[in-house]
C-alpha cells in the first residue's frame, strides 16, 4: 500500500561518485519489498515539476536509504538535500519480486543500487559489476559479506561488464539472473547471452509522470504488449522486453 509523505533526511553522504541519502521512516520497513522503488521530490518546489523514480538501496526499521547518481537537474537537486531538510516520498511502488535464494546479479554503474537491495533478500550468489573507474565500484565489500562472489571490472582498467559476462557465460547456467544498468549495456548483454535470456530479468528505466499507473508514460513493450514500468515492473524477463 503506497503512501505519500514528507520525510526528513537524516544523512547525506558521498559514496564513490554517488550521493547516499538516508530518510527517516518507520513504516517503510514493513511494506517495502524486493523490486520496489519510490518517487522522490523536493517539498514546496515545482522545479523540477515531476518526482524522480529512485530505487531502495536499503530499508531498516527506522529509515531507508537511496543512492543518487547526478544526471540532470532533478538528481542534482536531490543530491544536495541536507540533513534536517525533507523529501517528498511516494511509495513503495512497483511490483514486488520474489527473489531466488541464490542467483546472479549483473550491475552497471548506478545499477548497483537496486541490486544491492536485492542481495539483502538473497542468501548467496555471484555479482558481476562494472563501472567506469575502479573507485566507482561501491558496496562490493558489503555484498561479499552477504555471501556473494564478487567479480568486478572497470573501463579504465579492462573493459565493461559485458566483457566480463562474455568471459563467464557458463556461470549463468541454471541460475536466475538479474541485470540493472544503462539500456545500452542491457541491449549488448541481450545480444551475447543467447538462451540464458530466458532466466534473466532486467530492471527497466523509463521517464515517469505519476509512478502509480495513471499517466501511462512509463510504457515498455513486453512480449507484444505495452506494460507499465511503474506498475508491472520495474523488473521484466529480458527475452520478452522489446527495446525501441
Amino acid at each position, binding site marked *: 500500500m503506497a503512501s505519500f509523505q514528507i520525510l526528513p533526511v537524516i544523512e547525506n553522504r558521498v559514496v564513490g561518485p554517488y550521493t547516499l541519502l538516508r530518510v527517516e521512516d518507520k513504516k517503510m520497513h514493513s511494506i517495502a519489498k524486493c523490486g520496489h522503488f519510490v518517487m522522490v521530490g523536493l517539498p514546496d518546489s*515545482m522545479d523540477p515539476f515531476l518526482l524522480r523514480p529512485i530505487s531502495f538501496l536499503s530499508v531498516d526499521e527506522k529509515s531507508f536509504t537511496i543512492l543518487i547518481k547526478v544526471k540532470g537537474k532533478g538528481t542534482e537537486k536531490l543530491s544536495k538535500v541536507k540533513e534536517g531538510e525533507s523529501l517528498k516520498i511516494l511509495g513503495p511502488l512497483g511490483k514486488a519480486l520474489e527473489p531466488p535464494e541464490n542467483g546472479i546479479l549483473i550491475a552497471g554503474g548506478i545499477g548497483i543500487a537496486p541490486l544491492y537491495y536485492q542481495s539483502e533478500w538473497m542468501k548467496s550468489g555471484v555479482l558481476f559489476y562494472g563501472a567506469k573507474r575502479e573507485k566507482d565500484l561501491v558496496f562490493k565489500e558489503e555484498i561479499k559479506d552477504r555471501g556473494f562472489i564478487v567479480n568486478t571490472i572497470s573501463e579504465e582498467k579492462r573493459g565493461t561488464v559485458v566483457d566480463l559476462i562474455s568471459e563467464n557465460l557458463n556461470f549463468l547456467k541454471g541460475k536466475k539472473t538479474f541485470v540493472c544498468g544503462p539500456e545500452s549495456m542491457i541491449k549488448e548483454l541481450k545480444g551475447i547471452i543467447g538462451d540464458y535470456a530466458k532466466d534473466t530479468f532486467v530492471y527497466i528505466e523509463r521517464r515517469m509522470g505519476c509512478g502509480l499507473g495513471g499517466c501511462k508514460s512509463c510504457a515498455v513493450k513486453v512480449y507484444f504488449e*505495452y506494460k507499465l514500468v511503474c506498475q508491472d515492473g520495474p523488473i521484466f524477463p529480458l527475452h520478452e522486453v522489446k527495446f525501441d
Partner: protein
Amino acid sequence: MIDLTVSFNHIKLKNPIILASGVWDLPYTEIVDFNKLGGVVYKGISLKPREGNPTPRITETPCGVINSIGLANKGVENFNKEVLPLLKKFDTAIFVNIFGESIEDFSRISEKISDVSGIEVNISCPNVKKGGVSFGRDPKTAYAITKAVCKNTSLPVIVKLTPAASNIVEIAQACLDGGASAVTACNTYQGLVIDIESKKPLFDKVVGGVSGPAIKPQALYKVYQISEGVEIPVIGSGGITNYKDVLEYLIAGAKSIQLGSVIFNNPLAPMEIIDNIIKYMNEKGYRNLKDIRECIDE
C-alpha cells in the same frame, strides 16, 4: 456550515474539485480518498485497446509537463469490467473520457457506457494522428460528434475542448447546439521539445501536449471567454496547483475545475486544495460557491 456543492445540467458534485482524465488510475485511490472528491474523470478510452506512442512519453518544460501518451488504454470493455466496479465503491461522481477516430467511433463507444455521472468527449488530444485536435478545431465536427454522442446516451455529455481552436467560443456554442451539458476548457497546449543531444524532437510524434502551471493564464482566459460568450457551464482545466488558482477559475466563470498534472508534483494536492478552500471560505465568512464568485464590494 459551508456548502461546496455545485450542480449544473443534471451534473451534481459534492464539491467543484474533479480529477482530470489521464493522470490517475486505480492505484491512486490508495493515496487519495476518492469519497472526498467532487468527481473523477477516467482516462480517455476508445472502442478497442490502444497501445499509445513510443517512449519517451513525458518530460518537463518550464513550470509544466509535456506528454505524448497517444491515448494508451485498454478499451471500453475493460473499463466496464475491470475499472468501473471498483470506482463505483466510492461516493463521488464518475465521468469517463472517451476518444474516437471517427464520429462513428464516438457513437458506438457512448452506447457502451452507462452507470456513470457523465461522459466527457475528448475532441482535443494533441497526441494522436486521427481525431483529436483536428476534430476540436472545427465547429461542424464538434457539433456532429456532440450530437452523435448525445443521441446514443441519456447521460450528461461534457465536451473537452482544445485550445488550438482559433475561436473556442464558437466551438463551445457548437457543443451547446449539439446537446452538451457542459464543456471542459481546456485540454493540453501543443508544444515541442528538441533533444539538443540527438538534435531531434524528443517525442516520436514530434508534438506533445503541454500542461501544468505554464498554461494557466492561457486556459483561464479561454474559460473566461466561453463563460462570457456562451450559455454553457464550463469546467476549468489547466495549470491549477492551489486553492488560489481554483478561485481564479471560479471567478472567471468556471462551475467546477479539474486537477491534472499537479498530482504528479504533489499527489495530495486535491485534498489540500479542498481543505484550503474551506479555510478560505471560513475566513471570509462565505457560505457557498456563489459567495466566492460574487464581488461583495459591488
